[in-house]
């Protein structure tokens, strides 16, 4: 067990393997999803996280299992890293009844009450007020823990972003805001949508301590998150991290990516967070090539099993269409 009060990243071999393993799981899972999408096994919108894995892996590795996570419609990685079984996440992508949201949500709406994973929000900035409220509940109930909220830089244009930051700061709430700045809000570049391209500067004006880090470097992300989350847990109010990152894929499967230069994408790909970390860990002798191969083999097996699980699972019967609109009477709060 790592000491959760320790601000430093303890890069043991064990931890390094874990970081690489999680990034690999997310990467390979999503590559498989892209394939399954083209086979029409997965439908709707599919927003891939490929290129941005270091953010979820770095941040979530600092959270305790009961610290709530609120994410966006690009949340497969966050769900897997948080510990949702890959089988259930894959089944959800298929829309199967054993999926993490019983198949009702699909790619954009993965939830798990057990893992305190609050989705899966497809309205930009829609998750920020929820995170503020989760933190408010903790504070009022006297539970000392953080709530972690992921969102993209596009959210910074929404009123809800500003309103939420103000509330969290005003009420001194234990929220860790993590802005994954991949520089494009769908097809609109940061410079075309923000008068001041620094997102972390916005947090600062609400009196929230903020920090911008290299989102392609999992160690940097983890270090920043560790500092921030400890401060939040200590009751120092909200913290804000802006990670500068990049998605290697288009916004969604049905996006011709007209708004980005190929050269720009190639430049960022040279800073692939998995490659970057693996190379560094190999050179620092924290990992060896066998480790990497073993991870890839394990992950491939896990994915194969998840696909088989999802394929074999049943769809919910149509008769159940009206389920879960409101609580069944037996669950009424008394």
């Amino acid at each position: 067990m790592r000491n959760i009060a320790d601000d430093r990243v303890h890069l043991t071999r064990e931890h390094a393997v874990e970081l690489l393993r999680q990034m690999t799981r997310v990467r390979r899972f999503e590559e498989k999803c892209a394939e399954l999408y083209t086979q029409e096994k997965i439908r709707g919108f599919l927003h891939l996280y490929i290129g941005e894995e270091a953010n979820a892996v770095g941040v979530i590795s600092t959270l305790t299992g009961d610290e709530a996570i609120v994410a966006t419609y690009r949340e497969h990685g966050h769900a897997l890293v948080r510990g949702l079984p890959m089988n259930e996440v894959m089944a959800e992508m298929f829309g199967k009844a054993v999926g993490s949201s019983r198949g009702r949500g699909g790619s954009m709406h993965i939830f798990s009450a057990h893992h305190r994973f609050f989705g899966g929000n497809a309205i930009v900035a829609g998750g920020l007020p929820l995170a503020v409220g989760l933190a408010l509940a903790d504070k009022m109930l006297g539970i000392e823990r953080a709530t972690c909220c992921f969102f993209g830089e596009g959210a910074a244009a929404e009123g809800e972003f500003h309103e939420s930051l103000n509330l969290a700061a005003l009420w001194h709430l234990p929220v860790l805001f993590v802005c994954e700045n991949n520089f494009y809000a769908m097809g609109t570049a940061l410079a075309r949508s923000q008068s001041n391209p620094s997102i972390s500067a916005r947090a600062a004006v609400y009196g929230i301590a903020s920090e911008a880090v290299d989102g392609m470097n999992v160690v940097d992300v983890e270090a920043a998150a560790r500092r921030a989350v400890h401060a939040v847990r200590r009751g120092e109010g909200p913290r804000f991290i802006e990670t500068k990152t990049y998605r290697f894929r288009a916004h969604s499967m049905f996006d011709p990516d007209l708004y980005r230069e190929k050269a720009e994408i190639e430049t960022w790909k040279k800073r692939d967070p998995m490659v970057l970390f693996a190379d560094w860990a190999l050179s620092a002798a924290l990992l060896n090539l066998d480790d990497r191969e073993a991870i890839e083999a394990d992950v491939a097996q896990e994915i194969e099993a998840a696909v088989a699980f999802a394929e074999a699972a049943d769809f919910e019967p149509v008769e159940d269409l009206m389920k879960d609109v409101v609580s069944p009477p037996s669950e009424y709060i008394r």
Partner: protein
Amino acid sequence: MTNSRLTYREAVREALREALARDKRVFLMGEDVNRYGGAYACSLGLPAEFGDERVRDAPLSESAFVGAGIGAALGGMRPIVEIMTINFSLLALDQIVNSAATLRHMSGGQFSVPIVIRMATGAGRQLAAQHSHSLEGWYGHIPGIRVLAPATVADARRMLWPALEDPDPVIIMEHATLYNDEDELPADGDMSVDITKAATRRQGSDVTVIAHSACVKKALNAAEMLVGEGIDCEVIDLRILRPLDDETIIASVRKTHRAVVVDEAWRSGSLAAEISSRITEQAFYDLDAPVERVCGAEVPIPYPKHLEQAALPQPQSIAAAVRKAMRR
């Protein structure tokens, strides 16, 4: 003069092109309308013709850019604001309901807001519960605005200009499943359309099926299915969701004595409820059967295809309602 074959998407684009070309005050504003080409590719190619000023990317700030569109309309421009989906329009609801729809009245008629707001609506593409809803009935509830729902390629092409000529706010609902529909239009034929009248898409004598948007096609399919059973449906495309064209609806019901209202939206408090109510108010003594409704199941739209389709009106369910109205 030759006919040109184009998609609904292209029809919207041509209408935008015409508007931008005809009136210097017109500009298009919205999320990803410029570089991305529009979330549904409706504005693809337009920035090259009209420039970044008049095809203006906006940040994800629905309340602000819709409100800014209202302000620009007050200030003498003729803005066309695109909202990516109707679910996102909820973030701008305050500006639409509390400003656009009220300014004329609360200023005692001094100001009008000649804005056109376009948005994609509806389910059918497995986009689950935050991208699939049909909330146009909510807009239909609000006095002070006009709500249009082009169901055909021709209407998609023709409705924008009269909408811009309307001195008051107009909302155009484009059903997301219609963008790929194709039809033939006269290349330079008559582009005018009456944005106060519903359209009768099929003449019939036994039952009036009233639908709008993507449900018009489904209603027409149902009507064809029923021909073999000796049932002759009249299909009315509402086209205008506010103000409703009572005259066309009531005249048809007076003729057929039976009505089936099809609405993709949830049944409770829906446009279908309003239409059904008007029929009973105005044509009660002409009715030979209770007004039937075929509406979306009252569930947030689920992701899996079979459940999503089960939640929506289908030709089969429309046909079943027609049979019920016919007491078959």
